[in-house]
């Protein structure tokens, strides 16, 4: 029965309704500002929680043995161009949707006290962001996908620009213009596809065989857009700036979900539509990914700003994702998607932890921290779990993703595997140094300030994240089963 409902549209546009509802909360009565602000927060939280609950219904009704897309909704939009409003999910998009609906409430809770001004605008921005992200993961029409893909820039620009740090304007502009330049080239590719095929419906496009020459250019156009989003070296320079200046919740959503849009785009469009060009460009992707992994790991080691450190480590981890995707075999693809989900959990958790530290000491300089193990024991335990997840210790979700990617890429190119594998060591070096400095550092200025351990709200933020990081470390099949059908379809294209 439930499959007859337009459940994907409901999930996608429910946050939008919440945002409109918040818009209606009037702030004419200046006396009750406190009351008003808490109303706004509660409405935003409930909206995002409701979205999460409905997305759980999606999970319960999803059948991972079925080939193709489920919960499909289709209706004409601009018929003369062959553009349809086409939503549907498969085993690849489902985990991302759940990750999004899971992280947004966490973001809202995390900014409960840290956002003091313009709370109304902040919550509206976040709910808009959720709508656009969910719409992007659900859409199966190139044009609809592009619209959501690029619309994400608007709320993110505002979030960085208004609530960011001291250099926020530069970071917001860089983020916006960089990603816009990447995606407009994809726009031309999409227009070309529309012109040649006469439809932007994904199910029509996958049956259409482009000539190699055409695939070559189209793949490049899409690559620009996705490479900036992933971000792949050398297009990653916007990421450290955006991460450092964004507010905590902005960094969480940026690292947790926005970085996955690029990888998702590769899986959904680049590989199925341009298989020959993908194969042709495999060496290029492998080499820039290897450079990304080694180079950014070294750069991360040199950072004193902890947010920048995690930002560069994200680039290295996303390098694993692109290697996995372009190894074109089951282990590689499974590992890449798993790595994206696990990185979504781990890096979000790390940014939340940095937010907690920043609220207490108002600095992000790694040398200013120390001795947290005695001052904030509960916090240090959580930080330990997240750090080890990032290092890819067996038993955490980070391990599963990286080992699968390495196993997959071994089949494609052993040299790349060895180069990429070096990141396991390099990652351990900078992450363990990070943890050592913070938890066991020497006496320093932090010692003179009285810091409180995490409160109940923060505890509840970290608990589910660390639970899932460990759970998926021990039972990776909880997610991996969903990838089987879509991945075997992609692999089928390459054999």
């Amino acid at each position: 029965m439930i499959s007859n409902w337009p459940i994907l549209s409901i999930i996608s546009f429910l946050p939008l309704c919440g945002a409109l509802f918040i818009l209606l909360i009037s702030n004419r009565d200046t006396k009750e500002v406190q009351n008003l602000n808490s109303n706004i927060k509660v409405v935003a939280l409930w909206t995002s929680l409701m979205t999460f609950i409905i997305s759980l219904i999606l999970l319960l009704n999803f059948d991972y043995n079925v080939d193709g897309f489920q919960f499909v909704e289709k209706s004409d939009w601009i018929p003369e161009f062959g553009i349809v409003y086409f939503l549907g999910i498969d085993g690849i998009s489902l985990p991302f949707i759940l990750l999004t609906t899971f992280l947004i409430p966490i973001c809202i809770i995390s900014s409960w006290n840290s956002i003091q001004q313009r709370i109304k605008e902040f919550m509206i921005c976040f709910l808009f962001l959720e709508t656009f992200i969910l719409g992007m993961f659900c859409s199966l029409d190139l044009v609809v996908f592009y619209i959501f893909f690029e619309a994400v820039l608007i709320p993110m620009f505002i979030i960085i620009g208004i609530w960011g740090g001291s250099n926020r304007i530069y970071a917001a502009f860089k983020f916006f213009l960089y990603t816009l330049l990447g995606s407009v080239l994809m726009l031309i590719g999409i227009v070309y596809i529309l012109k040649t095929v006469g439809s932007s419906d994904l199910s029509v496009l996958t049956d259409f065989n482009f000539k190699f020459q055409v695939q070559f250019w189209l793949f490049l156009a899409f690559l620009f857009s996705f490479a900036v989003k992933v971000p792949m070296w050398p297009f990653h320079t916007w990421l450290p700036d955006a991460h450092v200046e964004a507010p905590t919740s902005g960094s969480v959503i940026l690292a947790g979900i926005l970085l996955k849009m690029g990888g998702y785009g590769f899986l959904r469009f680049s590989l199925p539509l341009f298989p020959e060009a993908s194969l042709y460009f495999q060496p290029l992707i492998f080499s820039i990914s290897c450079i990304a992994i080694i180079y950014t790991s070294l750069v991360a080691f040199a950072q004193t700003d902890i947010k920048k450190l995690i930002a560069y480590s994200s680039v290295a981890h996303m390098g694993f994702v692109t290697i996995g995707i372009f190894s074109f075999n089951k282990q590689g693809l499974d590992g890449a998607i798993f790595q994206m989900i696990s990185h979504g959990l781990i890096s979000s958790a790390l940014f939340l932890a940095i937010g907690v530290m920043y609220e207490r000491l108002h600095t992000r300089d790694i040398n200013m921290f120390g001795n947290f193990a005695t001052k904030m024991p509960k916090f240090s335990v959580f930080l330990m779990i997240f750090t080890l997840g990032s290092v890819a210790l067996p038993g955490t979700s980070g391990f599963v993703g990286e080992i699968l990617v390495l196993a997959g890429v071994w089949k494609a190119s052993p040299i790349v595997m060895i180069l990429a594998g070096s990141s396991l060591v390099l990652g351990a070096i900078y992450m363990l140094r990070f943890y050592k400095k913070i938890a066991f550092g020497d006496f320093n200025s932090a010692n003179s300030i009285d810091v409180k351990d995490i409160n109940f709200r923060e505890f509840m933020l970290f608990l589910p994240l660390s639970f899932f990081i460990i759970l998926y470390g021990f039972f990776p099949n909880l997610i991996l089963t969903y990838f089987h059908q879509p991945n075997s379809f992609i692999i089928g294209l390459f054999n």
Partner: protein
Amino acid sequence: MSRNLTKDNYNLDGIDGFLVGIPEFFLFCAILLLITLNIYYFKSKQFKNSSKFSIFVIFITAILVLFNPYHGFAFNDLVFIDQFNKFMKCLILLSIFFILIMTKNKSEIEGINYPEFNVLVLLSTCGMMIAASSNSLMTLYLAIELQSLPIYVLCALRKNNLKSSESGLKYFVLGALSSGFLLFGISLIYGFAGSVNYNDINLNDISSNLGLNFGLVFLISGIAFKISAAPFHMWAPDVYEGSPSPITLLIASAPKITAITVLMILTFKVFKKINYHWDDLLIVLCITSMIVGSIGAIIQSNIKRLLAYSSIAHIGFILLGLVSFSKSGLSAVMLYLIIYLFLLIGVFSIILSLKKEDQPIEALSDLKGLSVNFPHLSISLLIFMFSMAGIPPLSGFFGKWFVFFAVVEKGFYSLAVIGVIFSVISAFYYLKIIKIMYFEGSEDQVVLDQTLELKFSMYLSLIITCFIFLFLPFFQGLITKSLL
């Protein structure tokens, strides 16, 4: 494609010819009546009354345009009316309608509290309507003069303001020069093609005729001046800045729509046969406009100067649609005009509703802190800016989308790439406005003075900008029905 029908079938002589021109005749009589009324009848509240009267006149004219059943040639083939002309005339009348209602209660603060304002606007409208339906280069020239002369006066309407006078004079001198170009081009075409009438211009054995090419270059230059396409854009920033805001809106919208209509008719109908003489010229205009518009606007600190450069960039995109010489290019341009018109109306409705020390706001820095003081206004301006930058799902994106579709369809990939790159560059200064409103400290001297009409215009254009994806099938249907 009613244009392809032979002229004998559609030639309307005698009384029928007059019936074709009913809207223009009505408008002209109404203008004469308005002058009389201004002198003898509207004693108190002169501006408001004449404003109300002109709004009513525009409304009736629009109805007459829409429901006039007579199509075809009239007045010895000097005029031609079909669905396309009607569509464009409605667009022109729509923009005039919004200009009039937005000015109604704003004449004093803008320093244009003279009832002649309405008379001049209506006169110019009359010229635009005739230009849009002209079927002869002579009619075209006269109509464009009728359209331009009242606007020169309107620019200088703030008599005591130095910049206003300067802008009027500048516009007049350069406008007269461009009219000279136009006339010179027309005379050359007359000499080498044998006629000024669109039906009789003979292009059969003159494909390599230097004189005709010269004529075409002059003709295009004259029109390019009217749409302020670079390198004929020099007047635009100064005139935009100096003129009172309602006049700036007028200059930015209606005459440009008219000139684009004329350009469409000339390229798609009259000189289509020899389009290889045109298209390089248009491509140059289009690329230079995008470059000048995108880069010139970055350093501007005056709102209206910035809008002038942004309009140059938008004209570049519109020309991009024309360059494709295809049906989809034509409909893309028409859609772009609708979208751009509503964006302009929205932006100007916001500019008009703010004042600082009883003067209209001018500098970009006056928008500082708008988001704190007037959140509704600033969120609307934010949406308009993102839309102008072409970010989905707002209307500007769809305008650009259809233009790019037409360009790629023709195989002009490099043009499309240039277009998107300059659209990213121009996004920078739209973001700059958002930055000033949202990311910077506040300026408390700016006060809100939003009349009901301004509110209406703002929310209407906001609805169209945000929910364009719902209106698209409707607009598309309208455009396909009235395609040239």
